[in-house]
């Protein structure tokens, strides 16, 4: 066997409301990357409904698999392994991806690799640029707000996480209060640009030296502000609220990431997850990190996709890590 053979990993991701399949070459190059989004179906509920997400995944999974595979122009012989998100996420949604991956791995006699969703988000960046260790990753999405330190491939050390709401969750809740559509993040980001951050919402720094986050206090402060204004019959300026809320979130995320990067002397800082698409956050981070390399993936790799799962799976594949047919969905899978 040729040792320098290219490695092709088929990735599957169904942890939330995207049914996604991708094929990645050598962990760095996207061959195909198909994402079927369910956003339109969940919009009317103002958030992702788990049971409906699971139903859509079953309907979509083989269609997305086929599209990804056909687009790739590859044969099954070329595929080295099947990587799939095993957690964390919505259990019913994860189950579809996990069972599809197991069935395909069995049918085609391919190795199976369970991947952590957050490891995927981090490795989305390696599809753009090679990693340099140590590196620090800020993962911000509807489900996560975490700081992860990596000293080498496939090794993750969580140094901070949210103690209550994820940043994206706070965005969605505030957006709902302001009467903005779901998902709220992009709308607040846009509205914030039209307003001024003149309302003094709290910043939760927590204990000295802590890299944990908390957004529930901020969320309550915004809700109280809106209630008070309504009670006093004062017209609220939605743009100012959006700008002030965003300023608080962005400042905390930026400062904590900056201090952690300083403390651990990292060579790269990676921003991952859906909220990485936020322009306010990008601008603030770019301003703060003048010397350390800052990597923010393009939008389609920030949000959930399967190329990132295939990329992270490639590392496990090279390290000889395999899952067996008892692999299960684990909604609270720890990152390790």
């Amino acid at each position, binding site marked *: 066997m040729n040792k320098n053979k290219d490695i092709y990993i088929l990735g599957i991701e169904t942890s939330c409301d995207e049914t996604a399949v991708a094929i990645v070459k050598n962990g760095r190059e996207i061959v195909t990357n198909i994402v079927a989004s369910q956003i339109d179906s969940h919009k009317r509920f103002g958030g992702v409904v788990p049971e409906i997400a699971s*139903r859509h995944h079953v309907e979509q999974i*083989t269609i997305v698999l086929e599209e990804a595979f056909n687009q790739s122009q590859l044969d099954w012989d070329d595929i080295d392994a099947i990587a799939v998100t095993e957690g964390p996420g919505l259990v*019913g949604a994860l189950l579809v991806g996990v069972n599809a991956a197991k069935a395909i791995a069995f049918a085609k006699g391919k190795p199976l690799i369970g991947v952590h969703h957050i490891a995927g988000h981090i490795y989305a960046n390696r599809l753009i640029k090679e990693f340099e260790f140590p590196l620090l990753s800020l993962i911000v999405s509807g489900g996560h707000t975490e700081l992860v330190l990596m000293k080498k491939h496939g090794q993750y050390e969580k140094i901070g996480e949210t103690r209550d709401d994820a940043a994206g969750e706070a965005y969605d809740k505030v957006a709902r209060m302001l009467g903005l559509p779901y998902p709220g993040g992009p709308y607040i980001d846009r509205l914030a640009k039209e307003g001024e951050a003149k309302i003094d919402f709290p910043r939760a720094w927590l204990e000295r030296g802590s890299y944990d986050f908390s957004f529930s206090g901020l969320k309550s402060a915004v809700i109280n502000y809106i209630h008070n204004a309504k009670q006093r019959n004062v017209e609220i300026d939605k743009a100012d609220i959006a700008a002030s809320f965003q300023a608080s979130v962005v400042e905390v995320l930026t400062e904590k990431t900056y201090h952690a990067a300083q403390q651990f002397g990292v060579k790269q800082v990676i921003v991952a997850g859906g909220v990485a698409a936020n322009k306010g956050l990008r601008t603030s981070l770019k301003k703060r990190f003048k010397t350390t390399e800052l990597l923010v993936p393009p939008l389609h790799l920030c949000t959930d996709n399967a190329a990132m799962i295939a990329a992270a799976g490639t590392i496990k594949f090279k390290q000889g890590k395999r899952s067996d047919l*008892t692999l299960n969905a684990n909604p609270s899978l720890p990152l390790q």
Partner: protein
Amino acid sequence: MYTLAIDTSNNVLGVAITTKDVVIGQISTNLKKNHSVRLMPTIDLLMKQVEIKPSQLEKIVVAKGPGSYTGVRIGLTTAKSLAWALNIPVIGVSSLEVLAYQGRFHDALICPFFDARRGTVYTAGYIWHDGKMSCQLDETNILMTDWLDILLKEEKEVVFLSPDMNVFYEQIKDKLGMLAVIPEAPYHIANAAHLALAATHYREESTHLLTPNYLRLAEAEAKWRQAQKRENKHGG
């Protein structure tokens, strides 16, 4: 060439391998235990035991519900993905029809049911006719009391088949009395080999189009539709 039949739609996890005339092997458990963990290893074990490779399969048959939403999805996802990867057809068969086959030799109306909570059941009425199970009373999600009223009007014996018999036994006996035929425990468990048999009466569908038979809207969906209806009424 071989057919692989899969049922994880309720507590029974059943896997069978058949040819046209022979049931080659079958594994089944009746436990409320993680189907997601156990299904593929069970398929793997059975296929190894009977020395059949995935490439020798020519058809997949799966119980498509009604039943546990999660169980149905595990079965369907596995069946569809196997069929897609092996490039062979997949056929979905009602989980109620499969269970009805357990009443194959009785002249009565055959009534399989699954507990669907809050006093309701997923059920239907079948008779053995013309060499197959044919549906007399359509699949439905209904209050058991209402369903028993419907059955009473048929004025004939009814064979009840259900893994959830203990929940409704008294109710059935009270209402139907002598008309209710309730067999012993082994008859209340669906048999995966019957899936393959039932499937011989069905046309192959596109793998992509095979969807679960939930018999019930997702709760959020049902509420949303009701709200829409209300709005339409008020809006004129």
